[in-house]
Structure formats: C-alpha cells, structure tokens
C-alpha cells in the first residue's frame, strides 16, 4: 500500500471529522475514501476513528498517530519539494477527464515548447472539483467548462466548440448526414457526472428539452461503452472510433464553452493559459466565442389553431 497517500487521507478525515467534507477537500468521492481509511486501519491493526456515533470521532490511538502522520507526510512533501527544486518547477493543471487524449497530448507538447523549464503535471478532474482544487491550491490552473459558479476565480479567454452526437454505428440515425435533437427522442443520454459538471448538465438538458429531446434516462460517466452498446447517445466533438458514428447536430444547439481558470496569477499559469487558447483552437477545433445567434422558432399554422 502507498502508506503516505493513505496517511494523507487519514489526516484530511481527522481534520474535517467528516468523510464527505474530507472527500470534497481531496477531490475524490466518499466511498473510496472510506475504503482507504479502513485499509489503513487494517494495515496498522488499530481503529483510527469511532464511527458509532452520528459524527466521526478520532479514537485515542487515532489522536496519538495523527501527529506522527503529519510529521511523516510533511517530511515526504519536503523530500518532493527538494527533488522538484533540483529538476525545475512544476505546474499542476486540472483538465476534464473526457478531454480527448490527442488534445491533452497537444497541451503537454505545447507547454513543453513555450515553457521548457516548467514541468506540466496534468490531473483529470471535473469542473466542480477543479474549482475546489484551485481554492485549495492542489492545482495551479484548470481547464473548466462554463457556466461555472466560483467567486474569486479568474478565467482565460472563452472558447466554444459545437458538439455533435455520438451514436452506435448501427443506430438508424447514423445513416443521415445531420441529426436534430428532436430525432433523439426515446433514447437515453450519457453525460459527464452531474456533480462534477453541474453547469454543463443543466445547460444541455434544458436545451434538449426545449428542442424535443427528454432523455428517458441520463447516465453519468466518461467512458463511451454505453454508446458503443447502443444503449445511450452522447454529445461531444467529432471523433472517429470503431463501432461509433459521430454526426453534427442540426442547428448547432449544443456548444461547449471552456476556458482556463486560476486563482493566483503566476508566470507559468499565464503562459499555460495563452498556450492553451492557441492549442485548443488548433488541435481541438475550438473557436472564439462569437455573438450567440438567437434561435428562430418557426411559426407553423397549426400551433395556435
């Protein structure tokens, strides 16, 4: 087991005395956190927390070990810091887990070119968790989806990417050149997790509903297995994957808006931000946010008849 990491989990829970809050702070889900703390207890052969009451309490042993744990973790951090100083600075960047591998690769390569002295350490984190991570300094700069509600964050230039629909290759809709949202009626939808992308969730589902698509079920996840199986459709940029078909959406109703985000202004964060705008335009087909065109709704004579 990675003892140091497990000690970090232990410290977070000990400080919060609440598994949920500790999980948010760590940028992870609660069940794996509980599991790892339990594993640490098994490893040490002691109980660290008393979970019997309604609230979480440290046991006597837990209290005793907390100081030692902090000592170990801070020494390990110091070790890493020294090592980093030896090999150069690091910029910790959060990116959405569903960002295409090629785009992430282009970001890493682009940053290597513009800032050769700084190493890029990307972590896959959804927008809401990036906001937390930025607040806690776990990451230096993020790549977030808008709308995002986070006072105190600064954002880079907003970029837009029209989304198409991903279907199983055998879906009858794969035969047409472009698909209208209303054509998707009766299908289930795969979206990124609602907790991780609340703004995107709300925006997309509202637009779907306006245009005649109320998904029977909204699945949450980043893997496209359900789409491949023909059990759901998903929105996204154009991709070519075996077994899947990508089609543009008629009228471009769904557009993803992303930007970099940071709290503390640093040279590395600013450089990354500028490089990201260029790279996302070149390799992810994103464009400057233009004036949104008002959606025209045609008036058919039967409507008020």
């Amino acid at each position, binding site marked *: 087991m990675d003892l140091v990491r497990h000690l970090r989990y232990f410290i977070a829970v000990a400080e919060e005395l609440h598994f949920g809050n500790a999980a948010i702070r760590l940028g992870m889900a609660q069940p794996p956190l509980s599991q790892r703390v339990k594993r640490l207890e098994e490893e040490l052969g002691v109980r660290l927390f008393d979970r019997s009451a309604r609230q979480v309490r440290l046991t006597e042993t837990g209290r005793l070990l907390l100081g030692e744990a902090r000592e170990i973790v801070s020494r390990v951090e110091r070790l890493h810091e020294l090592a980093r100083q030896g090999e150069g600075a690091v910029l910790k960047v959060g990116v959405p887990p569903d960002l295409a591998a090629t785009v992430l690769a282009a970001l890493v390569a682009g940053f290597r070119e513009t800032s050769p002295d700084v190493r890029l350490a990307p972590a896959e984190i959804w927008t809401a968790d990036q906001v937390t991570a930025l607040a806690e300094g776990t990451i230096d700069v993020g790549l977030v989806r808008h709308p995002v509600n986070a006072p105190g964050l600064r954002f880079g230039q907003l970029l837009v990417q029209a989304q198409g629909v991903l279907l199983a290759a055998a879906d009858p809709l794969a035969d047409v050149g472009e698909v209208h949202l209303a054509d998707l009626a009766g299908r289930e939808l795969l979206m990124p997790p609602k907790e991780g992308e609340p703004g995107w969730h709300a925006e997309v589902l509202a637009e779907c509903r306006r245009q*005649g698509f109320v998904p029977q079920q909204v699945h949450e996840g980043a893997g496209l297995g359900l789409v491949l199986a023909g059990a759901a459709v998903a929105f996204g940029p154009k991709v070519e994957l075996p077994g899947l078909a990508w089609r543009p959406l*008629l*009228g471009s109703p769904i557009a993803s808006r992303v930007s970099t985000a940071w709290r503390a202004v640093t040279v590395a964060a600013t450089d990354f931000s500028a490089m990201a705008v260029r790279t996302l335009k070149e390799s992810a087909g994103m464009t400057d946010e233009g004036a949104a065109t008002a959606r025209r*709704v045609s008036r*058919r004579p039967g409507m008020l*008849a």
Partner: protein
Amino acid sequence: MSAPDFESLFRTAGVTGWLHAADIDTGREIGIGSDDPLPMASMFKVPLLVALCRQADAGLLDPAERITVTGAGRSPGPTGISAMLDEVTISLRDLAYLMIAVSDNTSADTLLARIGQDTINAMLDSFGLDGTRVVQGAGESVDSLGRDTGHGWPFVDPDDIERLSALDPARSNRSTPREMTRLFGLIWRDEAASAASCAWMRGVLNAQVWPHRLASGFPYDDVAVSGKTGTLPTLRCESGVVDYPDGGRYAVSVFTRSFSTALNQPRADAVIGTSARMAVDHLRR
C-alpha cells in the same frame, strides 16, 4: 456520398415518386424523374399567385381591391369560400391567401378569371419555365372527374382512375419537379416579382395549414417549411422551401402516384416529407 435510395423509399410507401431538390443559393441539386411532365393539381395556384403579384407590381391591379363572390356558381372544393354558403366581399390578396393557405378553389378561380391563363403562361415563358402550363381552373379540373367517369364522388375504382384527364399532363395543368423548384427559387431569391411582393408570397406560402406532407419531414421548431400541396385521385404532391437554422434554404418538389386508389394513405403523404428530408440532408453533406 452516394445518392439516397429514393425509389425504395417511395416503393415502401406504396407510391411511384418524382422529386427535385435544389439549394436555392448554390444551385446544388438532386432528383429523380426531375424533368417528367406531371399534372400539378392545386400547385397551379403558385404561378397564379406570382402572376397576381406581378400585375400588382406593374400597377395593373390593386391587391387590396375588394370584390364580391356570390353564393352561386362557386368552384367545388372542401375548404375556404368553396365550402361556404353565402356571398363574400373580400380583397384580391385575401383571396390569394385563402387559395394558398387552405387551397380554396373558389378563391383561385376568382383570381384566375381576373388574371387570365395567357398572362400566367406568358410569365412562365419569361421565366423559361415552358414545361409548366396553366390550361384550366380548379373548378374545371374537379368537374372533369365527373365528366370522365360518368359519376360523382368518390373516384376510387382503378378503371375510373385510368380515364381521368385531370391526371394526364397533356390535358391538365402541368409542370415538372425541376420547374416547380425553380419557381420557388425565384420567389425566395426575390426574382419572381418585386422584393416586397416576394416577401409577401413567402409569408403566405409559410401560412399553408397542411402539416402531413413536406412539413412532416422536418418536425423541428427551428426549421421553417413553406409550400403548396396538390391532390387528385392517386396523385399527392407538394412543392415548397425548407429553411434551416443556419440560413440554408432548399426548394423541394415531390410528386407521387399511389398504387392503391384508397383516399386515406398517411404513408403516401408522409413519404413526401421523408424523401424531402433525405434530399435536403444529401444536399447539406
């Protein structure tokens, strides 16, 4: 990109089909039997509408002029003034609206009497649409059904259908799918009459009430469908324009003849929409 399989689509719906679709701005086109002469049934009301506008543009008539349509001697028909009983006083442009929106035969024939077939055909010649001819009014067309079969409504006997001159392009108002889309292209590009008249015609054609043919292929709030239907025993057609949210506009004309003589054939109506959607989708690829 291979062309869509219109033939099997039409066959599945129980009809023979003819189609022409064109991007109004680029001229890109696709079709099947696009140049075959076909009876145009009530779609003859479109060249009549254009001729009315050109006469108004030339100052030869006032579209707001009111005329009285008496209760007697009306052209038969299921809608509009044809279906009403009493005398009506109405402007020329409102007659035109009724003629397009609900395909009112009496409105059409009242305007046709005012404009004259020769004026319409001369106009069609000037557009280069010499495959399109108006040789009779709506009332004459309906009357010919009884004359050709020797009996009144309904006309569902296959032998009767064979005898109908209204279905013979040589003896009735006729056009081709390509000429119909060209006519709609002229209206949408402000070339058929003055820009103001063309804008008014587009509004009237957009107010057509029937949702079961061309419009049924585009069941989307942000797509506008305008057009004019035509219907006779076994003949179902519609020509019009589909406006896409990104500004793309496509003139489409679909004619069908059903294998069955039954009057109610929702699949035959709907295939006009699905084939049009297929054609527009192809033009946009």
